[in-house]
C-alpha cells in the first residue's frame, strides 16, 4: 500500500475554507453546501483509506509518521509539522470526519434559512481542519495548535448569532474558561520539554521513564497540569461551566463541537499521554475521581433542567466524566470506546433535539412540548434509539462502552468510583427518559402558534439522523464482552495502549462476577427508566410531590449549585475591581487631572514652568524616583 496521504485529511476542509473565502457569495447556497459537505466527505474517504492501509499492516508496524516540514529547531529541541497515524488516531479521524460529515449534511437543512449560511460553513470547515490537526498531530506542540484552533472556532460558532447578547457572552466565556485550562496545558508542556527535551510523542514517551522518577513529584505535577488543560476543553470540574452556556450556538454546532468531537479532545489527549499518566499514579487517581465526581454532579443538575439542549449539555459533561473515569482507572481503551459510541448517540440526540426545535419554531422548553411522537415520527424513532443507547440498555451502543468502564473500575479495585458510576447510570437513564417523555409522550403542551407550523424536518436532516441511529444501535457490537484476548476494538487499540491494554493492570474477574456486574448495571438503567415513566407519564403529580417535599434540593439543582454565581464572586469580580482600581488611579486621578490641568494652563500663561510644577508630571517623576529608591534600598539591605 502506498503512503496514506495523511496531510490531505485536514487540508481538504482548509481548502474549502480558502475557496469559500476566495469565491465569496458567488458560490451561492447550493455551491456552499456542496463545497463544505464535499470537502468533509472527501476527508472521510481519505480517512477510511488511511485506516484500511493501517489495518493491512502487521500489528507492530501500525504507526505511520508523515513529516510535512521542519517547524523549528532550537539547540537539541526540534518540532515538526508531522502527522501520526496509529490505531488511536485512526479511530479519532474516522469519528471526526464521519460524524462531522453527517452533521454537515444535516446543517444544510437546519441552516437553510439563515442569512449567514456561508459564514456558518466557513467556520464549520475551519473547525474540521483544526480538529483533524489536533488528532493527527505527532507532537504536543502541533496538537496545541489544533487545540487552540478548535477553541477559536468554538468561540466563533457559539457566538454565531452574535446579535443575541447572551450568545456573544457565552462565546467569550467559553474562550476564557478554556484559556484557564490552556494555562495548565502550556505549563505542563513546558515541564515535559524541560525534563525530556522533546514534545514528539515517541521521543517523549520513551524518554519519560528515564527522565522522571515513577510516582515522583515532577511527573505528577506535569500530568496534573496536562489534565487541567483537559478539564477545560472537556468541561470537567472545575472548568465545566462554559459548556451549558455554549448551547447558545446553533444546534448542529452543539452536536458537532460540544458533544461529538471537540469536547472529547481532553480525553484523547489524556489517552494519548497514557504512558506519562501511568508513571504518576496519583494523577491517575485524580483523573478517576474528577471524572466520577463530574459524572455524578452533572447528572444531578441534568435532573432539573427544562431547556432540552441544557439537559443534553449536562448529560455530555456527565458522559465525558465517564470517559475520564475510564482513563483514571487505567481502562484507556474503554474510554476511547465510550468516546466513539458517545459521539454517535450524543450527536444523534442533539440533532434530534435540533429537529424538534426546528419543528416547533425555535421552542426549547420541555414544558412546552409533549406528545410529539405522532407529529414527528422519524425524529421520535431515532431519538428513542439514542435515548436507549445512552441509558445503557443492551444491545444498544452505549451499553457496551459504559459497561466496560464500570467493569474497568471494578476490576482495578476502584469500588467507590464504580459505585458512583452506577449511581450516575441510574440518574442518566432517569433524566434522559424524563426528556424523552416530556418531549414525545403524554399530552401536547405546545403553544397554538407553534402547533400551527408543526412539521417533520426535511430529508437532509432526517437521513443523518437515520444513519446515526443505526450506528447508535450497532456501534457497540465491535466491543462484545466475553471474547478471548479481548474484543476486536480492544485488540485494535492494543499497539497503542499495550498488550492487555485496559486490563493489563487489572485483576481478571471470573465470568460470574462479570455477568453480575452487567446485570447490576442493566437493572440500574431499567430502574431509572421505570421511575422516569412513572414520574412524568403515569403519575405526573409524583414529580411535583417530590419537588415540594425537598424544595431546597430542587432549588439547588435548578440553580446548578450556584457555581456560576460563586465563580463570578470569587474570580471575575476581584479581577474586574483590581483593573478598575488601577485604572481609576491612573486615568482618573492622575491622567484626567493632568489633562484638565494642562488644558487650563494652555489657556493661561507660563506654560513650561508651571507644567512642571502642577504636580501631575511631577507625580510621574515622583513615582519614577520612588521606584529607583526602592531598588536602592533593596541593594543596601543586602
Amino acid at each position, binding site marked *: 500500500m502506498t503512503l496514506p496521504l495523511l496531510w490531505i485529511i485536514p487540508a481538504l476542509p482548509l481548502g474549502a475554507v480558502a475557496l469559500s473565502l476566495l469565491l465569496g457569495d458567488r458560490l451561492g447556497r447550493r455551491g456552499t453546501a456542496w463545497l463544505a459537505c464535499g470537502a468533509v466527505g472527501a476527508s472521510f474517504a481519505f480517512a477510511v483509506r488511511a485506516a484500511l492501509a493501517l489495518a493491512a499492516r502487521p500489528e507492530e508496524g501500525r504507526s505511520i509518521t508523515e513529516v510535512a516540514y521542519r517547524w523549528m529547531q*532550537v539547540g537539541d529541541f526540534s518540532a515538526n509539522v508531522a502527522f501520526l497515524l496509529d490505531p488511536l488516531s485512526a479511530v479519532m479521524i474516522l469519528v471526526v470526519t464521519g460524524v462531522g460529515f453527517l452533521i454537515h449534511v444535516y446543517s444544510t437543512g437546519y441552516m437553510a434559512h439563515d442569512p449567514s449560511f456561508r459564514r456558518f460553513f466557513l467556520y464549520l470547515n475551519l473547525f474540521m481542519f483544526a480538529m483533524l490537526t489536533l488528532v493527527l498531530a505527532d507532537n504536543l506542540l502541533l496538537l496545541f495548535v489544533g487545540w487552540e484552533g478548535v477553541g477559536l472556532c468554538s468561540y*466563533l460558532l457559539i457566538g454565531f448569532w452574535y446579535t443575541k447578547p447572551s450568545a456573544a457572552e457565552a462565546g467569550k466565556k467559553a474562550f*476564557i474558561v478554556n484559556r484557564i485550562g490552556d494555562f495548565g496545558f502550556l505549563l505542563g508542556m*513546558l515541564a515535559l520539554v524541560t525534563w525530556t527535551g522533546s514534545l514528539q510523542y515517541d521521543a517523549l514517551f520513551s524518554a519519560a521513564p528515564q527522565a522522571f522518577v515513577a510516582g515522583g513529584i515532577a511527573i505528577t505535577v506535569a500530568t496534573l497540569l496536562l489534565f487541567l488543560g483537559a478539564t477545560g476543553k472537556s468541561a470537567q470540574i472545575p472548568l465545566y461551566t462554559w459548556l451549558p452556556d455554549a448551547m447558545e450556538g446553533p444546534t448542529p454546532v452543539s452536536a458537532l463541537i460540544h458533544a461529538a468531537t471537540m469536547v472529547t479532545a481532553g480525553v484523547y489527549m489524556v489517552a494519548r499521554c497514557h504512558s506519562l499518566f501511568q508513571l504518576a499514579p496519583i494523577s491517575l487517581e485524580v483523573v478517576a475521581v474528577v471524572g466520577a465526581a463530574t459524572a455524578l454532579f452533572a447528572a444531578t443538575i441534568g435532573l432539573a433542567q427544562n431547556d432540552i439542549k441544557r439537559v443534553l449539555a449536562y448529560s455530555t459533561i456527565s458522559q465525558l466524566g465517564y470517559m475520564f473515569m475510564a482513563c483514571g482507572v487505567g481502562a484507556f481503551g474503554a474510554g476511547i470506546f465510550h468516546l466513539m459510541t458517545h459521539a454517535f448517540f450524543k450527536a444523534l440526540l442533539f440533532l434530534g433535539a435540533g429537529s424538534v426545535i426546528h419543528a416547533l419554531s425555535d421552542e426549547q422548553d420541555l414544558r412546552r412540548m409533549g406528545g410529539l411522537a405522532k407529529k414527528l415520527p422519524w425524529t421520535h424513532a431515532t431519538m428513542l434509539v439514542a435515548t436507549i443507547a445512552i441509558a445503557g440498555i443492551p444491545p444498544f451502543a452505549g451499553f457496551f462502552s459504559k459497561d466496560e468502564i464500570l467493569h474497568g473500575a471494578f476490576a482495578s479495585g476502584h469500588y467507590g468510583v464504580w459505585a458512583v458510576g452506577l449511581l450516575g447510570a441510574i440518574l442518566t437513564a432517569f433524566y434522559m427518559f424524563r426528556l424523552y417523555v416530556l418531549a414525545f409522550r403524554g399530552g401536547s403542551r405546545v403553544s397554538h402558534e407553534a402547533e400551527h407550523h408543526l412539521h417533520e424536518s426535511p430529508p437532509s436532516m432526517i437521513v443523518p439522523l437515520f444513519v446515526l441511529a443505526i450506528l447508535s444501535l450497532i456501534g457497540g457490537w465491535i466491543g462484545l464482552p466475553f471474547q478471548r484476548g479481548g474484543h476486536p476494538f480492544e485488540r485494535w487499540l492494543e499497539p497503542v495502549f499495550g498488550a492487555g491494554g485496559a486490563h493489563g493492570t487489572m485483576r481478571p474477574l471470573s465470568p460470574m462476577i462479570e455477568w453480575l456486574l452487567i446485570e447490576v448495571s442493566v437493572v440500574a438503567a431499567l430502574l431509572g427508566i421505570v421511575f422516569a415513566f412513572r414520574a412524568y407519564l403515569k403519575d405526573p403529580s409524583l414529580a411535583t410531590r417530590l419537588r415540594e417535599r425537598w424544595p431546597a434540593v430542587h432549588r439547588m439543582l435548578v440553580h446548578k449549585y450556584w457555581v456560576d454565581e460563586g465563580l463570578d464572586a470569587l474570580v471575575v469580580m476581584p479581577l474586574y475591581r483590581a*483593573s478598575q482600581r488601577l485604572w481609576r488611579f491612573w486615568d482618573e486621578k492622575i491622567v484626567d487631572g493632568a489633562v484638565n490641568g494642562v488644558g487650563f494652563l494652555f489657556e493661561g500663561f507660563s506654560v513650561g514652568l508651571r507644567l512642571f510644577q502642577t504636580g501631575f508630571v511631577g507625580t510621574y517623576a515622583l*513615582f519614577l524616583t520612588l521606584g529607583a529608591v526602592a531598588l536602592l534600598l533593596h541593594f543596601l539591605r543586602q
Partner: protein
Amino acid sequence: MTPLIDVDWWALGPGLALSGGAMLLMLLEFVPAGRNSSRGALVALASLLAAAACVWRVHEVKRALFDGMFVHDTFTVFFTLLFCGIAALSVLLSWDYVKRMRINQAEYYALLLAATLGMIVMSASNDLITIFLGLELMSLALYVLVGFRRSRLESNEAAMKYFLLGAFASGFLLYGIALLYGATGTTHLERMAAFLAGSPLLSNPLLLMGGLLVLVGLGFKVAAVPFHMWTPDAYEGAPTTVTGYMSAGAKAAGFAALLRLALVALPDLQASWKPVLIAIAALTMTVGNVTALLQTNLKRMLAYSSIAHAGYVLVAVVAGGNEGAAAAVFYLAIYSLMNLGAFGIVALLGRDQDEPVLLSDLAGLGFKNPALAFALTIFMLSLGGIPPTAGFMGKFYVFRAAVQAGQIPLVIVGVLNSVVSIFYYLRVTVALYMEEPAGEPTAVSRSIPAVIGVVVSLALTLWWGLQAHALLEQAQRSVLGLM
C-alpha cells in the same frame, strides 16, 4: 602606507546612509512641494534600504570601530536590520497618514531616520558613552515626533510629558554611567568586564548603585514598571504611526542596550540583578495586563499591552545565558511586527483628520471591511499568544528558556498573565464581529502603501508562527556575538 583611518566603510554604512538621508530631507524642505508630495517617504525608504544593504554586505564579519566604542557583530547586524525594517514599515504606514493629518513635512521622515540611527547606535555600542549618545539621539527625535501634531493639544501634552520624564530618566542613566566609571575606571564594556572579572570589588556599593541607576534609565525606555507612567499618555497623544514606531523600535533598542550591557559588561553582576529583574518583570506583566483589561481607548489599551510585553521580554532577560538572550531577541522581533501591524490598522481608521480610536468605533467593521478585520484579529491573537501565530512561538520560546533557567514561579506568573491578556485582546474581536455600530460603521481610509505595510506585518506574523525556524536561528546567531 596605512590609511588615515582604519574603518570598514560598509559596517559604518547604516550611519552614513541614515544621517545622509536625514540631512537631505532637511534640505529638501527648502524646495517647495505639494501638500501631497511623497518625496519625503521615498527618500526615507531609499536611505533605509541603503542602510540595510550596507550592513547586509558585511554581515559575516566582526569589526570594532572607533577604538572599540562601536562594534559590528552579529548582534548589531540583527538589530540594524530589525530597526531598518521597523522604520521602513513605519514609513509605509505613515505615507498617507501624515498627508491626512496635515503633517506631511520632510522633517517627519528626517526625525524618523535620526531616531532609527539612534537605535542602531544603541545596539552597536560597546561603550557606555556611545550607548548614551544613541539613546539621546533616539529620544530627542522621538520627543519631537510625539508632538508632531502641533495643533493638537493631546499631542503637545504627550510630547511635553515624555520629554520632561525622559530627561529625568536620562539623568538617572548618566549618573549611573558616572558611578560605573568611578567604580571601574572605564566606560568600555569589555574592559569593564575584564576589570571586574574575579575582582573583590563586586560588592562595591558604587558599582551596584551605578548598575542600578543605569537599569532605571533603560527601564524607562522599555517602559518597565515602575518606570512606565509616561507610556499611556505618550502613546495616546502621539500620531498613531509614531506610536507604532516607538512602541516597537524604542523598546527593542532599550533591550538591545540592556542585553549588551548585562551580558558583556556586567555578567558578574547577574546575581545581584536577578531578584530585582524578577520583581520588575512580574510587576511589568501584571500591571500592564490588568490595567489594560478595562481600557476603552484602543491606543491606550495597546499602550498597556506593550508594557506587558516588555515584561515578557524581561522574563527572557532574567533567564539569561545564550537561550534567554536569544529568546529575548526573538520575542522583540516578533513583538515589533505584530504591534506595528496593530497600530498600522488603527492608523487606517477614520477619514480626514478625525481619529476614531475607541473600541466601540470598531463595531461592525468585521463585515464592512473583512480583510482589515481579519488582519486586526490575527494581530490580536498573536499578541495574546494563540498558536499558530508568531506571538505564540515567541512566548513559548521565552517561557521555555525561563523554565530551563529554573525560573518556575516567574513562568507561572507569565503564563497566568497571558491568560488574563486574552480577555482584552478578545474584546477587540468581539467589537469587530459581534457588535452593531451605533451609527454608520467607521470609515477606513484608503492607502496603498499602508496596506502593503500591514500585509507585510501580517505575513510575517503568520509566517514566523508557521515557520519559526529561520528567525530563531538568526536570533541565536545574533547573541553569539555577545558571548
